[in-house]
């Protein structure tokens, strides 16, 4: 009964490679709810883009998730979904992985912020 109400708050979800998922789950963010839905997804070379997209959309729809951590290289695969998500919650954080260093020019949030300094919009 008290399993899920042990601490209040919302979840962090992870979509990423094996090491990212293992690491963040070691930090204690993993949860599998009563409907047997985990809040993490391990992406390997056999995972299709469609699967990632479905999981991402499912995470966005869940109201118990506040932050979605996604590897930047995985985010590149479903860029259109990330661009389409404009509401602040759940916040989507593109995180670097051990194989793919962080590239600020690909980050959706920074690209949106740069739009503010676009001279065409200012005119």
């Amino acid at each position, binding site marked *: 009964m008290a399993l899920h109400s042990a601490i209040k708050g919302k979840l962090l979800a992870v979509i990423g490679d094996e090491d990212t998922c293992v690491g963040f789950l070691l930090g204690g963010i993993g949860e599998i709810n009563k409907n047997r839905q985990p809040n993490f997804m391990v992406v390997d070379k056999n995972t299709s883009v469609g699967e990632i997209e479905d999981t991402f959309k499912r995470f966005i729809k869940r109201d118990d998730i506040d932050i979605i951590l996604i590897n930047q290289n995985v985010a590149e695969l479903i860029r259109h979904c990330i661009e389409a998500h404009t509401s602040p919650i759940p916040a989507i954080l593109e995180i670097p992985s*051990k194989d793919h260093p962080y590239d600020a020019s690909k980050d959706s949030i920074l690209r949106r912020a740069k739009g503010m300094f676009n001279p065409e919009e200012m005119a």
Partner: protein
Amino acid sequence: MAKGNHLDEVCKELDELSMRMLDLMKQYIDLKMTMEDHVKTGSLHLAKSRYIMGNKSVSVLQLPTEESELSAQTKVVGSDGDVSDLKLELSKMSLSEENSKNARDDDPQEDGLKKRKGKKENDSGDKDNKPSNDIKDEQNKSPKKRDAMQDPLKWFGVLVPQNMRLAQTSFNKAIEISIDLANVQLEMNSVREKFTTLVVEKKDLKAKSTVVDDAS
């Protein structure tokens, strides 16, 4: 004149918002870089523990599957209020706290057992059935609770190498930074929204002032 002043005010506010946005962008990139460091260090420690424990001992196979129940020890708590000034905080359940809770859970069981013994001595027969059922229920519940709330390190065995603990520390720091990042991101969103509304206002004011100039 009043309109001119208002236009100046709007322009000033736009400048301030631009500066704030640049500051936030810098913070955002710095935080991402720190996060990258922590993730890399954590991955390196994971790789070392994989080398010590064997290739298959640190992999997805050790993560809980959909058959097992698992509840998060680290969650995000949002401050009450509007989305525009929402602040997120990390809420962690310390395992020592959980252990003491478990210990407290155990105590009533012992009491129950003692009571049962006492009752058996005094009473005889059917009356004993009810309390013993309760005890069985409690015994069934408590192992489940412990499974759901154990230290994630235990998934990889009882005696895990030191590197595994170091990896856990690095990733814990990465989680803390992710909360800061989310807060910066939320502020960037609200600044951007304010900025766009002010730009529209500025355009309106400019259009009005040109119309007035033309008329005069």
